[in-house]
């Protein structure tokens, strides 16, 4: 399952298609991106980091115990803001800074 692309938000720029390490994303007749091989997503989130319109979310599938929450990311200068939603509601927000190292 991995990432889910919202075609209503997609502007068809092709960034996600180019960056996917598995060549899994393609565009449909309207030029909108879709995950051609859903089973094959690695959840690396490279596409989410490229998408200029936050059209891609990371979802944990039921097979792995997912209960419907999703991550959407937005860039704040160099920082990445990870927002977790359940339904439409924000349940958590975490900001990661590339200049801040892992402490473990």
């Amino acid at each position, binding site marked *: 399952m991995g990432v889910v692309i919202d075609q209503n938000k997609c502007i068809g720029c092709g960034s996600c298609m180019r960056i996917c390490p598995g060549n899994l994303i393609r565009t449909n007749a309207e030029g909108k991106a879709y995950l051609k091989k859903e089973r094959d997503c690695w959840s690396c989130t490279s596409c989410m980091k490229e998408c200029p319109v936050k059209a891609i979310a990371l979802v944990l599938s039921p097979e792995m115990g997912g209960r419907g929450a999703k991550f959407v990311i937005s860039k704040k200068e160099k920082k990445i803001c990870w927002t977790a939603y359940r339904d439409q509601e924000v349940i958590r927000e975490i900001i990661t800074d590339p200049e*801040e190292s892992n402490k473990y």
Partner: protein
Amino acid sequence: MERIIIESDVLIIGGGTAGCYAAITLGERTDLKVAVVEKADIRRSGCLAAGVNALNAYITKGHQPIDYVRYAAKDAEGIVREDLLLDICERLNHVTEDLESRGLTILKDENGEYVSRGWRNLKINGENIKPILAKEVRCQKNVSVYEHVNVTDLRYESDQVSGAYGFGIGDGIFYEFRAKAVLIATGGAAGMYRPNNPEKDPHQMWYCPFNTGAGYSMGILAGAEMTTFEMRFIALRCKDTIAPTGTIAQGIGAKQINAADEVYEEKYGLTTSERLWGTVSENLAGRGPCYLKTRGIDSAHEEDLYKAYLNMAPLQTLKWIDSEKNPSRYDVEIEGTEPYVTGGHTGSGYWIDRERATTLKGLFAAGDVAGGAPQKYVTGALAEGEIAAEGILRYLKDHGSVEKKSTALSRQAKEKKEEYETYLGQNGIFSAEQLEIRMQKLMDEYAGGIKTSYQYSEAGLKVAEEGIDDLLKEWKQISVTDIDELLAVYELRDRLVVSKVLIHHLRERKETRWHSFQENADHREKDTQYECYINSVYTGEGVRMLRRKLVKAGEE
């Protein structure tokens, strides 16, 4: 198919950690024309697409490179090439500092010294490690990068390698690469065995699922000698998400416990394979599930863990949030993954010399695809990329003669192009995915997968080999509807070829050298007569096995 011929001095197949660093080395030190060919986009391709948050191979103050060699040798029960490891270890710190100067964030103390995790790990923010490497590659004037091109086979005559063949994944163009020397840096192999989440999420795995063993496969088919495939790597990971455990185990010192809250790790030993084997054994004895004991960590530590995982395996942070089972209140369940073949963690890969030359003239190997040097990890792959680049430079001094330029495809190229064209539009009974599932089932059940708690027997291997041989025949009649399916077909071929060779290696080691990694149910103990490398060469008719004597550090 349209066609294009690319000529260069050096061809690098694979733009991951080792390939990028070799390209940077050749770019900065020479004027040679270098071509990097990559299946995806070098900014996010291969193992480090999502990032990494530690450098697991570094020589901290008070230690010497030989200490790391001894550690890796002990962890691998002696089956390592100490000469190759020592070359790598002598460069670990230099490549680390070099990467920092190019923009990698490494944790430092108030005196500006690196903060280590144990005596050989550094803490970093490596979320952007691939974009950093990619940027450095792209600013080399003499390096051209060909992305979204899948290489399937080496270009060779007798035992001289002189390039490679592939196809453009987006545009369907046939590529013939011609070069005086070729560096193979494609990574190792995932996807031969049935994975942990086989139904809907087969690619939620430890190793990069897009590393399909292409580098091994094209070398095997060209007759290159391979070593130590039987030392499989099986990772101990967080349940379901298959996210790393090292950050929890080493970072916050969490112990492995069973369902009765007993610490079991000392009972089985502390090598990488024994930690996994302990967990498998506790489960088999009915004392599972097993966990990393995180209960009781404070909220600041928990927040740091969330961030650490976002920088390498974001699904684990999502799982904590989604399930509302925070690590401060719930221990983190662990499980073993399916087996992989990868020379970055174990000794599996091309049999190489200290120049990183393979047994095929003109072909060099670095990173996960190169054998003999387990626990090289990210910094080891960088070091090996640099060593291979230097080896290639020395080779080119004596072998730099230019092939007669020709704009016509060679005979071998024509055959390869026809092969692709035959598959494209072929209407078979089965898809690549269907045969892949069959392969994974065979390997899981008969060649020591999760199903048998990683144990295998000779009788089982025979069933696995017959099944894999059947698939290698059926593979040629697969349905191929478009270029994406053509890619899937060759990825399947690569995994089948690696599986076949792996089965031979598993059979040849009639002992149990590494619990779980190579658990031979017919021979449960270690046997001194197997203190040697098990190597193989594919001859076209079958796999010929050979043994080689151990090489110690300082010996030639």
